């Protein structure tokens, strides 16, 4: 009498749990599909709006053009000044930010004790929460005068000023993701290295950091994606001259800054607007690729420790 009862109960439970299981699984895969559909929709939306520019000006004429004069009677729509502005500001921000961020991540993960660790982590979380306009204001109040005084430039609104502030803005991303990667390195490896007569520092740079290298790379790439996509602070600080820069002390104009500054003043459905959509398409493709590669790298690292 009891045996069938137990069996029935067990079957009943497995039926409901299987149902719950399949609902959850369907929801998750629905999410995945939704993400893909949304991404495709954004791409399509941009492409449809960019169509006129692609037909009338041509992709390569825009991509390789060295002049950006969108409002003169025979306008020039060359992307290179804007692309080089974005690349210069982003690369400089990375050069300034990556060494310090890695040092911070290593400190937090490998050397800081409980209290210090908590405090540093919350400082970094706080940095991530500051709106980018506020970063822009701080940049205008502090960084721009400093650059003007130190490097003797006319206005202080230079690629360097934008890069310095951008470095602070992408630091939280790079620090927290590389800290995660360092944290994921199994403790048994640290123990193994210490037991072989290595100091903590030797253990860190010979075993822990190389073991986390793909995660650190992904962190840098995600930081780079953020830097390229950042608009407001850069618009406020770089002086907005759409000219291919000679040095860090020139004013530059980024892709994002251009879209933000000009979109409000264009004719609806006009060629200029369509060109701006093409710029958006280029930006979207760049950041999408960077994020995709970073995700693949992170996934590879995750699988590595599951052996």
């Amino acid at each position, binding site marked *: 009498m009891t045996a069938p009862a137990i069996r029935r109960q067990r079957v009943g439970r497995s039926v409901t749990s299987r149902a719950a299981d399949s609902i959850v699984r369907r929801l998750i895969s629905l999410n995945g599909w939704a993400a893909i559909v949304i991404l495709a929709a954004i791409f399509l939306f941009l492409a449809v709006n960019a169509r006129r520019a692609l037909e009338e000006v041509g992709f390569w004429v825009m991509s390789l053009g060295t002049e950006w004069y969108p409002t003169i009677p025979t306008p020039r729509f060359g992307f290179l000044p804007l692309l080089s502005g974005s690349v210069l500001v982003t690369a400089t921000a990375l050069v300034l930010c990556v060494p310090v961020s890695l040092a911070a991540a290593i400190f937090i993960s490998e050397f800081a004790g409980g209290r210090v660790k908590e405090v540093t982590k919350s400082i970094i979380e706080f940095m991530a929460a500051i709106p980018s306009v506020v970063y822009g204001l701080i940049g205008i109040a502090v960084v721009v005068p400093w650059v003007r005084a130190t490097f003797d430039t006319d206005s202080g609104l230079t690629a360097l000023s934008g890069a310095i502030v951008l470095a602070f803005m992408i630091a939280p991303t790079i620090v927290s993701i590389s800290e995660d990667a360092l944290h994921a390195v199994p403790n048994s490896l640290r123990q193994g290295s210490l037991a072989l*007569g290595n100091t903590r520092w030797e253990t860190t740079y010979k075993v822990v950091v190389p073991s986390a290298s793909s995660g650190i790379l992904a962190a840098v790439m995600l930081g780079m994606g953020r830097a390229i996509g950042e608009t407001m602070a850069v618009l406020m600080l770089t002086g907005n001259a759409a000219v291919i820069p000679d040095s860090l002390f020139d004013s530059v104009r980024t892709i994002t800054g251009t879209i933000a500054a000009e979109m409000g003043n264009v004719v609806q459905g006009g060629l200029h607007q369509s060109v701006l959509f093409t710029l958006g398409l280029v930006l979207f493709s760049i950041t999408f690729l960077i994020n995709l590669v970073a995700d693949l790298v992170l996934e590879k690292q995750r699988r590595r420790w599951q052996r």
Partner: protein
Amino acid sequence: MTESREQNVTGVFELENVSVTYGSEVAIAGVSMHIPPRAVTALIGPSGCGKSTLLRCLNRMNDEIGSAKVRGRITLDGADIYAKEMDPVELRTRVGQVFQKPNPFPMTIYDNVAYGPRTQGTRRRSELDEVVERSLKRAALWGEVKKDLKKHAFELSGGQQQRLCIARALATQPEVVLMDEPASSLDPISTQQVEDTIAELKEYVTIVIVTHNMQQAARISDLTAFMLRESMEEPAQLVEVGETRVMFTNPGDKRTEAYITGRFG
């Protein structure tokens, strides 16, 4: 004759009244024992009786645990290893350790073994080649891997990985190798291979091994130390230590007999 041989042999531990506390918890207390050179000493006892704790005293890995505090006196070849002038980092090149789970570094087989010697400053390729070959031979892994030393260590089987870790520990030419349940995550064949390796290693180094496997202790050790923690309120103690053969046939303490024959909770 034997006298002078004894004097040249290194890797002798002397423990006097050793106790370890973690914060306010006294884990082990009053452990005194002699660990002879070129022999296998097995530490046995129920889970939580402080075997790993005692083992970590010998290469000062307890230093890495913030709350751990070691008291008493431990000498290696006559020198107090907790003395001020003793550098724990240097000590660990003399006292190697093999862990419960194989923990090869994510690099090639060659680089794993060369890791310790490189830290010690060996740079010459020929010298490194020699150390790598000798260490892998002593760990009984050479035959299986000599063709592809450039292979990633993660591609080896669990048993091979553990022997690689033994080779890695041997490469710094330690006097002592500590092993904390080195075969507990391995299949019977790999276990057999690791045991064979240990038996051969005795020739070069002193071995202190923690094991839960009574047959294993009986098979491979010369000396056995039985530890026991009678209740959580009091620290674990060393019940007895003696020649393995005697311990397993004619234990001096009732509790040892009960544990060895498996009549222990």
